[in-house]
C-alpha cells in the first residue's frame, strides 16, 4: 500500500533546484521549478548518480555527470545518454510539509 510520507519542508527547497532526501529507504529528488514541486527517484538511470545534485531548468533536471536530462513531470529521459525513465512520485503540500507518495 502506498501512502504519503513527509519528505522535507517546503522552505528547504530552493526556488529553482532540487534536494535529495531518503523517504522510507528510497532516495528521492524533490525538485521545485516554476512554482511546482516534483518528486523523482534520485538515481540517474544511466549511472549511479543522484539527480538532486544536478541542474534544474524549465521542466528538466540534468544529471551533472554525463548530462542526461529527465522531464521532472514524467521522469522520461529527454536527453542522452540515459535511455530509461526514472520513477516519479505524487507530491502533496500540507502547510510547510512536502509529502511524497510511495
Amino acid at each position, binding site marked *: 500500500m502506498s501512502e504519503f510520507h513527509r519528505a522535507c519542508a517546503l522552505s528547504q527547497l530552493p526556488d529553482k533546484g532540487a534536494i535529495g532526501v531518503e523517504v522510507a529507504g528510497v*532516495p528521492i529528488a524533490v525538485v521545485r521549478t516554476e512554482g511546482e514541486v516534483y518528486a523523482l527517484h534520485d*538515481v540517474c538511470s544511466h*549511472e*549511479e*548518480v543522484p539527480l538532486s545534485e544536478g541542474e534544474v531548468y524549465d521542466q528538466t533536471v540534468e544529471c551533472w*555527470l554525463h548530462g542526461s536530462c529527465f522531464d521532472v513531470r514524467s521522469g522520461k529521459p529527454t536527453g542522452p545518454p540515459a535511455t530509461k525513465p526514472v520513477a516519479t512520485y505524487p507530491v502533496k503540500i500540507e502547510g510547510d510539509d512536502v509529502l511524497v507518495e510511495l
Partner: protein
Amino acid sequence: MSGLQGAVETAPVSRLHEQQSYDPADFAVPSGREEEWRFTPLRRLRSLHSDSGPGDGKVHVVADAGPGVTIEKTEHGDARLGTAYVPSDRVSARAFASFADATVVTVSPNTESAEPTHISVRGESSEGSAFGHILIEVGANARAVVVLEYSGSATFADNVEFVVGDGASLAVVSLQVWGDDAVHLSHHHAQLGRDARLTHTAVTLGGSVVRLAPSVRYAGPGGDAELRGLYFADAGQHLEHRLFVDHAERNCRSRVRYKGALQGDEAHAVWIGDVIIRAAATGTDTYEYNRNLVLTDGTRVDSVPNLEILTGEVAGAGHASASGRLEDQHLFYLMARGIPAAEAKRLVIRGFFGELIGQIEVPELRDRITAAVEAELA
C-alpha cells in the same frame, strides 16, 4: 638524453592498484565516483564500504580437507596472514581488520592431494555484517585442488590468499551460489612462486550484489595463471568481477577468460580486467577476454579491459571484450533441424559456457554447474 626523460614510461600510469594498507582508515569512504567503485551500487552494500558495525553477522566456514592437507583455525596476529596480500580497498581492509577467525589450509611441499579440499562459507542471515579470511598455502612442488563454496544469506566481506610455492600447482574453483539477498565483496589474491601454476575459476550465480576481485602477483619467473569465470545475472542482480594480473617477473604467463549471460530487468554485470606488465617482466605472455550474452532487454553490461605495458620485450599481450545477443543464425540453424526455439536457445548457451565448464578440474562440479545454468534458463 635528458630530452628523452619522461618520454618512456617506467612506472605504470594507472594508480588503481597502488594504495595498499591493513588499516581501513587509510582508505576514504567511497562516494561512487572513484574509478574502482563507479560501477558498484554502494547503496545496496548495507554500509560494508563505510562502517557497517563490528561484524555481528553469522557466517560459518567449514572445511573438509583432502588427503595430505591440513586445516587450522587461527586468529588475528598469526604471522602467516596478510603476508602475500595487503588489502587494496576499504572493504578489503575492513575485512582484514574485523574477521573473527581465519581458516588456514596448508599443503605440505612435494605432496599431491588426490581429492579436492572443500571449504564451505555459509551465511545464516543478511542481518549484520560479517568478515572472513582464508589462507591457502601450497608448498613447493605440491599439487592441490580447492573448492570454495559461498552460500546462504549474508552481508559479507572477505579476503582469500593463495600462496603457491615454487613449482607447485593449485586449482581453485570458487562458487558464489548465494541466496537472493546476499551481499558479498571479496578479494582473492594469489602469489605465485617460480614456475608455479594456478587455475582459478569463479562461478557466480547467486546473490543480490557480488563483487569478486581475483588478482595475481608473481614472486618469481615462470609462473602461469589461468583465471576463468562464468556468471549468470538475473533480474536485479549485480555481479561484478575485477581481475588484476601484475606481471613484475620475467617469463610469466596469464590468461583471463570470463563469460557471462544476463537476463531480466536491471540484471547488471561488470567485468574489469586489468593487466600491468612492468619493465622487468620481459617475456610475458598474457591474454584476457570477456564475453557477454545478453538474453533479454533491460540488462546492462560494463566490460573494461585495461592493459599497461612497460617493456617492448613481451611474448604476447592482448585483450578483448564483446557483448551481444544470441546469434540469430545459430538459432535458425538449429530450428531448421526441427529443434524448438527454447531448446535451441538452451543449446547455444550450453555451448557458450561449455568450453569453460569443461575445464573445471572437479568432474562432479561440471555437471552441477551445467545444471545450475540450465536452471537459470528454465
